[in-house]
């Protein structure tokens, strides 16, 4: 990777004499010196605020710190005011051991175990350099989980690209998949699921959201806090190089000439072309080093040698030092010798060292008495570890460069006191027309033959096709605890080999629904992930999210964002699942065209006995097939409207959270009692796609007798996308008990038919042999991507 040659602050480095530095003394003596705050993404008002906080102009190194820490990416300045709802509306829970604000949320799953999980975007880097962008996205989220004290045990990813057949998608998708495969496989983490979707709105703005799951004992929890004056600040892992300098800010935050900027995770074609000279440099990942870092840190934790720890991601040393010091409390400070940071490029100066986003680094706080043992364990794992400073009781973060003071700030001013904006939000004028454009006007298939070909065309559509081409590049087996992985509704990981305690995880989002109604769309994403977790027999427990949107400076996008946040917070409250953390990715737009608002939601559930997990495939013949939930003729934003008519309009399916709750409770109890042979949630493509997927996953056909369809024939029942539904096959002999369970739980249960046979048969309408289903489902991605 080449360095960002136009970094505005580049002050000398090691070869230059110390006198070349912009020291604190010089900053005080030269108050009028012009500084490139705009090029660093800080507005005039923000720069003014820094000078007020410090009582003088910042040094170049201080300016570097504020520019990255007050960037949209690090400070959440446009979203923070809205994200408060996740805390304000959090349902009462005793499961949360650490929540929003930490590197990742931590959830009690019983048996003395806790799990931590988080979803994060690496969208823009994955467009610029798909392989490394996606690879370092995995690496970054894994370090977040490691920093909580947990052993990372699984990853997932939610991917969205431009049209599947577009030439640029052929550049981006294979690179992203290979990057995830490379990093995750080399790290030894099973990839247990995720999403793959395509839409022209993501051309130029692919979404690459990566999730990591970690497991720990309760007492292992680590926090990002520096405490104990005299303790050592240790930087461990990779040497610091010029990669990704200012990724979080230089190109990110505010307005360059009035338009959207481009940054670490915040892209925009207009921003890119206007600011060609300020192209971000994507970091390069080394999963081997990360594997050593993981094992090294876990051994350090087990030896009780870590007082506090923070991963280095966006904003690198600037972020880790300010957050660790601020996390320790108002009296905690730090003294850091920046010239002791091990470098890959000896010409780097203090500002560049502070902003570098070199991968595979962590910063630990260590008691002096334990330092020798600490360094010994690092040496065992061939992990470089360097003492770069000390914790102090001054409440000031002071940094020196060859003895001269170049930073002297209150750490909280950078970490916690960034600007907060309440940007204007306005429902776009086109929203009403979009919602009025109901799919009811579209031509529908009527005959059996038409319904049959509709099913086959949906089954082969890139959004619904078999994802094996992608998932076959991911190791799902390593560590030997993967119970369910793609294409299962949710991933399921065994946590304890003795008790069979496990956790299920699902990731879902639907940009089409969210465009039609961002409030409902966010709720539907949550509901689907919740339902997917429940369909394995697990109890949904907690939520993470990644909110992918266009520019917050566009009031229409800001309206979509506020609606989605409000919708998600409200629904989490009703479903009783708290948001434990998440990530916001703005500026996913090209010129004035933003992506569909795309909140991606991850739900984590606990499974008391993974041996009783439910899976999608029809496992055996002769089982009663039951459709759970209420079906309505809901086709707005549906897969059918898109594939058959390229239509997107109307309203998304109605949200019924009480019904979701009831359905999840019935599935969990049926799983526990062993009443079911299979379970699969209904989502894109409705009942028809779900039936085909169950047949293919189990290698078993079925015969379906559709009940009377009052709303215009069997079509809406087959292809409508009403929420809160699942398709199950019942263990022979358990029919009555299951029917009673559904009735008691208030879940409508319609007997559809029976499993078995050589194909999917809709009685009186059409049938498709299994091999024809399989070839329609399986051919699309290999044909497109080789």
């Amino acid at each position, binding site marked *: 990777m080449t360095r960002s040659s136009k970094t505005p602050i580049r002050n000398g480095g090691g070869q230059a004499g110390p006198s070349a530095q912009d020291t604190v003394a010089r900053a005080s003596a030269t108050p009028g010196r012009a500084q490139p705050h705009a090029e660093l993404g800080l507005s005039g008002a923000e720069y003014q605020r820094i000078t007020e906080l410090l009582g003088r102009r910042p040094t170049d190194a201080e300016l570097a710190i504020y520019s990255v820490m007050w960037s949209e990416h690090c400070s959440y300045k446009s979203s923070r005011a809205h994200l408060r709802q996740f805390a304000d509306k959090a349902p009462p829970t005793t499961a949360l051991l650490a929540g929003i604000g930490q590197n990742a949320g931590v959830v009690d799953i019983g048996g003395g175990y806790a799990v931590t999980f988080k979803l994060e975007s690496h969208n823009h880097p994955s467009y610029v350099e798909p392989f490394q962008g996606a690879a370092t996205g995995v690496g970054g989220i894994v370090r977040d989980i490691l920093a909580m004290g947990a052993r990372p045990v699984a990853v997932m990813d939610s991917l969205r690209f431009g049209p599947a057949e577009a030439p640029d998608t052929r550049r981006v998708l294979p690179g992203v998949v290979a990057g995830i495969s490379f990093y995750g496989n*080399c790290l030894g983490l099973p990839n247990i699921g995720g999403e793959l979707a395509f839409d022209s709105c993501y051309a130029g703005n692919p979404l690459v959201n990566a999730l990591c799951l970690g497991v720990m004992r309760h007492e292992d929890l680590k926090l990002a806090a520096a405490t104990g004056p005299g303790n050592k600040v240790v930087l461990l892992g990779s040497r610091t190089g010029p990669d990704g300098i200012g990724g979080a800010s230089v190109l990110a935050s505010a307005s360059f000439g009035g338009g959207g900027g481009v940054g670490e995770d915040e892209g925009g074609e207009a921003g890119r072309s206007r600011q060609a000279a300020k192209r971000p440099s994507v970091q390069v990942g080394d999963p*081997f080093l990360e594997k*050593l870092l993981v094992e090294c840190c876990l051994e350090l934790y087990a030896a009780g040698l870590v007082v506090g720890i923070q991963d280095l991601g966006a904003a690198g040393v600037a972020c880790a030092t300010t957050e660790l010091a601020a996390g320790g409390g108002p009296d905690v400070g730090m003294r850091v010798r920046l010239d002791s940071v091990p470098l890959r490029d000896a010409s780097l100066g203090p500002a560049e060292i502070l902003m570098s986003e070199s991968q595979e680094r962590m910063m630990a706080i260590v008691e002096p008495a334990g330092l020798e043992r600490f360094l010994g364990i690092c040496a065992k*794992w061939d992990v470089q570890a360097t003492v770069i400073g000390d914790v102090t009781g001054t409440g000031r973060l002071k940094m020196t460069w060859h003895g001269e003071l170049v930073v002297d700030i209150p750490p909280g001013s950078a970490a916690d006191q960034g600007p907060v904006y309440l940007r204007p939000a306005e429902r776009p004028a086109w929203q009403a027309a979009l919602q009025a454009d109901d799919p009811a006007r579209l031509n529908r298939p009527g005959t059996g033959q038409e319904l049959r070909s509709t099913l086959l065309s949906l089954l082969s559509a890139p959004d619904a096709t078999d994802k094996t081409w992608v998932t076959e*590049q991911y190791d799902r*087996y*390593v*560590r*030997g*605890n993967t119970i369910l992985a793609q294409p299962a509704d949710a991933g399921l990981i065994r946590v304890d080999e003795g008790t069979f305690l496990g956790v299920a995880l699902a990731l879902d989002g639907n940009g089409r629904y969210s465009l039609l109604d961002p409030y409902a769309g966010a709720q539907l994403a949550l509901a689907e992930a919740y339902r997917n977790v429940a369909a394995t027999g697990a109890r949904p427990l907690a939520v993470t999210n990644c909110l992918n949107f266009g520019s917050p400076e566009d009031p229409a996008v800001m309206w979509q964002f506020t609606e989605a946040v409000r919708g998600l917070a409200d629904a989490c409250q009703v479903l009783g699942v708290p948001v434990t953390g998440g990530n916001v990715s703005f500026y996913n737009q090209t010129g004035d065209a933003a992506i569909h608002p795309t909140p991606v939601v991850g739900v984590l559930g606990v499974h008391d006995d993974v041996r009783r997990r439910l899976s999608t495939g029809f496992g055996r013949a002769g089982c009663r097939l039951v459709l759970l939930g209420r079906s309505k003729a809901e086709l707005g934003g549906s897969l059918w409207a898109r594939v058959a008519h390229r239509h997107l309009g109307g309203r998304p399916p109605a949200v019924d959270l009480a019904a979701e709750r009831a359905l999840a409770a019935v599935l969990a109890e049926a799983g526990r009692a062993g009443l079911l042979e299979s379970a699969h949630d209904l989502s894109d493509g409705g009942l028809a796609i779900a039936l085909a997927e169950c047949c293919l996953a189990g290698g078993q056909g079925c015969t379906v007798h559709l009940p009377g369809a009052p709303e215009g024939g069997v079509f809406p029942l087959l292809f409508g996308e009403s929420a809160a539904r699942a398709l199950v096959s019942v263990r022979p002999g358990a029919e009555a008990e299951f029917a009673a369970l559904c009735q008691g739980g208030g879940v409508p249960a319609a007997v559809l038919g029976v499993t078995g046979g050589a194909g999917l048969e809709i009685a009186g309408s059409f049938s498709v042999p299994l091999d024809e289903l399989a070839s329609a489902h399986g051919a699309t991605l290999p044909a497109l991507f080789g």
Partner: protein
Amino acid sequence: MTARVGIITFPGSLDDQDAVRAVRRAGGTAVPLWHGERDLRGVDAVVLPGGFSYGDYLRCGAIARFAPVMAELVPAARAGLPVLGVCNGFQILCEAHLLPGALTRNSGLRFISREVRVRMENVGTPWTADYAAGQEVTLVLKSGEGAYVADPATLSGLEARGQVLARYVAASPNGSVSGIAGICSESGSVVGLMPHPEHAIDPLTGPGDEGLGFFTSAVRALAPA
């Protein structure tokens, strides 16, 4: 007393804990061995697990071959100590010249992770005695550089001496010559296998338990009288 099977952890080994689990499930005692120590701790057999030893920089297995523990392992293996190398372990055994040939990039140029059916062809080794000749078993293939290659003379020698241990039942998924999934040394004590038996020891977490036989074979063969 049960057989003591050592599992070497190199920096970048990933399936070492899976190998430990498989040895235990087969009734053996798993003994962790560390790449940096010239010490085999008196084990009865050794497993080189899958992963990316030393990041697989330069060439898969090329650096691991020079690890201190290998200085003990190579002469012991030549003297008859049973050694099973799986995936990256197979690559290391080839680099260490304990087995002939080499593993190269998959013909499709992509990492492949899938369940594969292999046919057992040599069941006379300490690692395969619990199988029947010609038995087909399902294991897990997960590798980017799993295509076995060797020069024609080496190949015909392997075939003639029954050193082809296992072959893919269907077309070779990675371009492996003659569908070779695993080979053994002339004595049969050193075995290299590209698909993973340790991921097929329990239907709950893998395609079944047909891989367990590799470990039960060794544990049975080596159990102290």
